[in-house]
Structures are given as structure tokens and as C-alpha cells.
């Protein structure tokens, strides 16, 4: 089971990530004054500085393990402070929605919001350890807190200097895209002043936001964390070469992405180019480069401090049968999204990907009991009721958009085929894949590293809660319903000790949801 600081990092990290993705300073009114002006112009910087200081402090303190009190590696959490954390988070969340939704802008509300954010952090910290342990850690690390705060400020300032690079980096990206297009396009349209390049049918503007700098920033975060966490498996300074190599690869792939976008638009698929491909291709590149870094770090002798895995003697990957069906659905969804304009015609790719992954590992599921009974079905009905209730709370006046126009205007045969694939995916593939991932692997892995040895009846409150929170977060706006669903599916599995129960419950929920969507026209729930 992970130590207390890992629990704290997961708890706060997931909350910060959700808030960062859901809310943006740009949502605040431009002509704000008072504390709202401060929040709009300095909120993001304060957030980055605080996050950076926490990462520097914790990371560097753990590099010197002797400064960390033994209590940090214990397992007990304090439920009273966890409740206080949940309460402060609820207030903070409500105030955030009010401020960023434009419903409140008074100095008192913003000040209360700031105090609540501190309360969220403090109660999270006290959930895992009492104040005395935190004071002891600060005492042992001396002036590290000051060094971390200063270092974070310096890093944020250095990072902001990247804006000086926008113009030359954008110009270079533009030049590379122009060169690549000139290899395949006869009559290229080039407007250097506007950074516009393309064909007579379709042109693109290479703006600073498309220069590749954001991907480079993400790769710096990922690469630095990877090198730090697994430094014992790497040779230094050789392993540092992975950073510039990865950055260069991402930069070139970004130029290739823009080139492909122009060619897709020129071929007549303008909406796909501008919508699906434009949003997904960057992430496809990032994942490919990140995985290449992971594999290269392991297999290149000049970089790796451990022997490369021997193909014949290579140990199996115990997590693969449980995670790969779910990851296959995700990957297929990203690829399908990259080829989507307004309507995901290629949804069946997800179904096929899941089926292939499950078939590949079919011999590894001997320890899984797929049976389920009526309690599982009843649990699925309860989850469906909760799902609809939460939706009604969050969307008091829902709009039934009905069948998407592209599908409605297609032939009856195509409609039936798409709907069959959609329902099969929702009722069969997704429940099996998600339950294998979150209950089969996630819940048990949070109990022990050797998760296969964990009985299907065994649980801890933290494992059940954390796996349910992760499950809920992945369900977007209805994350509250998702967390409740995760808890119920987990309890149903634990009651009889078989994964089939949670799969049955999940399939029942999704089947009822499919009927609901098709009868009410609430396609937004899909």
C-alpha cells in the first residue's frame, strides 16, 4: 500500500488537475477590479509557483531520505480531517464555480475563496499526518522551504522567458512546414507576414500557440519526473540526452502534424482537419515520444544502468491483461477522434480494439470469475438512478438534442450498424475493460504491489475510495456520479469476491443508459 505522502500527492494532485483543466483565468471578466483583478492576472502564476515550490520541497527532501520522519511512511489516515478536507473542498468548489462562472466578483467572496484553498491544502496535509509531524519535517529540512520557494519562483520566471522564443520558434516551424509541403504540393500558397501556408483549397496559420512550445513544456515535466524517479536505473549524465532528443522529436512531429493538417484539409476533409485531427494529433505525438523515451531508457546500454530485458527470459507483464483492454479503447478513441469532424463514425474502432486485446489475453483470465447474479443487476439499476439524478441536479433544464444530424441523415442500415456497435461497446466491451482496469487491477494494486495475490474479497477504505475517485474523474462532468458508481461496483465485487458481479452491474447501468439516451434523445449523456 502506498505511503502517506503518496496518498496526499494523489489526493491533492488529482484535485489540482481537475481544477486546472476545468477553470481558466481567461474566464474571469477582462475589466475586473480589486481581488478579482489580482486573481485574473496573478492567480495562474501563484498556482504554478505554489505547485512548483511543493514539488521542489517534497522532491528534494525525499532525495535526502534521512530528513523524512518515519511517520511519513505509515499507512493510517485520519478520517476526521478527511471529512474536513471534503467539506472545505465542497465550499471551495462552490465558490470556484461562482467566481469563474461570473456569478460573483466581490472582494469578500474572492478572499473567502483564497482562504478555502488554503484550508483544502492544510486539511489534506493533516489527513495524512498531524501538525507535529509536519513541523518536525520542516525542522529537519532547515531552510529547504526557502530554497524551494525561491527555486520555484526562478523556474517560473525562466519558463516565462520562453515567450521570447515564440517568434523564432514559430518562424522555424513555418519554414519546416513550408519545406515539407513543397515536396508534395505543386502550387503552394505562402504568406510569410501572416505565417499562412497551404494550398488553394486549404491554408493554415502557424500561430505561436501551434509552434510546438506547449508540447515541449509538457515533455520537460514528464522527462524531468521520469529521470528523477527512476534515476537508479539510469546512467548520468548520459540519460540527460533523452530530454533534448525528445524535445527535438516532438518539435519535428508538430511540424509534421501541421503539414498533415493542411493536406487533410486540401483533400476535402476540412472539418476533420480543423476539429478532430487538430485536437488529437498533438497528443498522439506526445504519447509516442514519451513511450519511446521509456523504452529507450531501458534498452539502450549507453543510457540504462540495468541490463536490458532478455527476450527469452523476459518476465511477463502482470498488469497487461487487466489494463490493455481499457487502454486499447482509449487509444482507439483518440485515433477515431483524430478522424472525426462532428460525429464519431468510427466508434466501432473502440469495440474492435477491446475485442482484440481481450482475445490476446484470453488465457490469462483463468483466475477471473465472470459470473454475476441478481444483486449485481440491482446494483446496476441503482447506479443508473444515481446517474440520472446527478445529471438532473447539474443540468436542471436539459436539452434533448436527439440523434446527431449526420447519423439521422444516413441510411437505415448505417444507422442500425452504428447503433449496434455503440450499444455493444457500451454494454459489453466498456464494462469488461473498465472493471478489469479499475477493480481487477486498480483496487487490488492499491493494496499490494503483487496485486494478483490479493484476494477478490480483500479491500481497504483507501483502495476502494481512491480507485473509485480515479474511475469517477474519468467520467468528466458527471464525476460525482462516477465516484458513486465506482464505490457501488467495487462493493458488489467484494461482496461475492468475483469480478463478474461488478461487470454485470456496470453492464446493467450502461444498458439502461442506452435505452434512456435512445428514448429521450439525451445524446449528450453518451
Amino acid at each position, binding site marked *: 500500500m502506498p505511503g502517506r505522502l503518496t496518498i496526499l500527492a494523489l489526493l491533492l494532485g488529482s484535485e489540482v488537475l481537475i481544477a486546472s*483543466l476545468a477553470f481558466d483565468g481567461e474566464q474571469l471578466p477582462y475589466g475586473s477590479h480589486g481581488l478579482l483583478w489580482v486573481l485574473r492576472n496573478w492567480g495562474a502564476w501563484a498556482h504554478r509557483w505554489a505547485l512548483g515550490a511543493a514539488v521542489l520541497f517534497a522532491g528534494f527532501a525525499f532525495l535526502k531520505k534521512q530528513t523524512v520522519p518515519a511517520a511519513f511512511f505509515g499507512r493510517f489516515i485520519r478520517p476526521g480531517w478527511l471529512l474536513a478536507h471534503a467539506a472545505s473542498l465542497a465550499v471551495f468548489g462552490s465558490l470556484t464555480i461562482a467566481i469563474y462562472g461570473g456569478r460573483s466578483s466581490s472582494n469578500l467572496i474572492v478572499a473567502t475563496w483564497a482562504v478555502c484553498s488554503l484550508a483544502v491544502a492544510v486539511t489534506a496535509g493533516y489527513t495524512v499526518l498531524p501538525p507535529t509531524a509536519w513541523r518536525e519535517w520542516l525542522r529537519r529540512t532547515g531552510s529547504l522551504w526557502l530554497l524551494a520557494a525561491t527555486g520555484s519562483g526562478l523556474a517560473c520566471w525562466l519558463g516565462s522567458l520562453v515567450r521570447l522564443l515564440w517568434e523564432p520558434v514559430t518562424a522555424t516551424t513555418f519554414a519546416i512546414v513550408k519545406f515539407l509541403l513543397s515536396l508534395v504540393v505543386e502550387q503552394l500558397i505562402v504568406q510569410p507576414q501572416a505565417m499562412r501556408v497551404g494550398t488553394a483549397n486549404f491554408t493554415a496559420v502557424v500561430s505561436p500557440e501551434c509552434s510546438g512550445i506547449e508540447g515541449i513544456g509538457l515533455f520537460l515535466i514528464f522527462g524531468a519526473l521520469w529521470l528523477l524517479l527512476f534515476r537508479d536505473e539510469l546512467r548520468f549524465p548520459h540519460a540527460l540526452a533523452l530530454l533534448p532528443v525528445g524535445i527535438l522529436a516532438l518539435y519535428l512531429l508538430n511540424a509534421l502534424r501541421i503539414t498533415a493538417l493542411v493536406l487533410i484539409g486540401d483533400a476535402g476533409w476540412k472539418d476533420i482537419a480543423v476539429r478532430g485531427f487538430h*485536437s488529437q494529433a498533438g497528443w498522439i505525438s506526445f504519447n509516442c515520444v514519451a513511450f519511446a523515451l521509456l523504452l529507450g531508457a531501458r534498452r539502450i546500454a549507453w543510457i540504462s544502468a540495468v541490463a536490458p530485458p532478455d527476450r527469452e527470459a523476459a518476465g511477463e*507483464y502482470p498488469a497487461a491483461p487487466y489494463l490493455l483492454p481499457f487502454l486499447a479503447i482509449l487509444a482507439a478513441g483518440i485515433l477515431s477522434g483524430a478522424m472525426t469532424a462532428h460525429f464519431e463514425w468510427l466508434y466501432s474502432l473502440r469495440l474492435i480494439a477491446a475485442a482484440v486485446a481481450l482475445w490476446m489475453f484470453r488465457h490469462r483470465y483463468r483466475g477471473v470469475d465472470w459470473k454475476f447474479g441478481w444483486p449485481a443487476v440491482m446494483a446496476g439499476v441503482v447506479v443508473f438512478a444515481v446517474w440520472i439524478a446527478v445529471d438532473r441536479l447539474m443540468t436542471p433544464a436539459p436539452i434533448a438534442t436527439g440523434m446527431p444530424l449526420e447519423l439521422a441523415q444516413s441510411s437505415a442500415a448505417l444507422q442500425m450498424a452504428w447503433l449496434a456497435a455503440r450499444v455493444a461497446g457500451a454494454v459489453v466491451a466498456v464494462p469488461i475493460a473498465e472493471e478489469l482496469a479499475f477493480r481487477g487491477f486498480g483496487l487490488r494494486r492499491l493494496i499490494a504491489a503483487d496485486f494478483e495475490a490479493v484476494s477478490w474479497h480483500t479491500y481497504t477504505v483507501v483502495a476502494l475510495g481512491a480507485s473509485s475517485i480515479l474511475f469517477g474523474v474519468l467520467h468528466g462532468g458527471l464525476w460525482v456520479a462516477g465516484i458513486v458508481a465506482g464505490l457501488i461496483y467495487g462493493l458488489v465485487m467484494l461482496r461475492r469476491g468475483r469480478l463478474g458481479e461488478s461487470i454485470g452491474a456496470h453492464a446493467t447501468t450502461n444498458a439502461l443508459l442506452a435505452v434512456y439516451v435512445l428514448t429521450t434523445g439525451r445524446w449528450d449523456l453518451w
Partner: protein
Amino acid sequence: MKTILGFALLMTGVAGQVVAGIPTPEIGASTAAGALTLLSGGIMVLRSRRK
């Protein structure tokens, strides 16, 4: 040397989160969540290898 390297790597990561904070309208929360989940899951599979 290791200490300096460790601190430098941490600062690189922190600087990276500033660079990555440049707003890019077309990258929505859902695409980011899906892609990062895929990356995280892949890492978990690779790191689960029996030694």
C-alpha cells in the same frame, strides 16, 4: 553532484509546467485527460514487469 542534478531536474519540471501553461484553445480537457490516462496506463503496464 547528484544533489545538484536532482534539484536541476526538479526545476526543469517546474519550468516546464510554466511553458506548458500557454493556452492552446484546441486542446480541451477531455482530450488531455484521455491522452494522459493512456500514457499513465502504459507506464503502469511497463513498470509491472516481473523481475
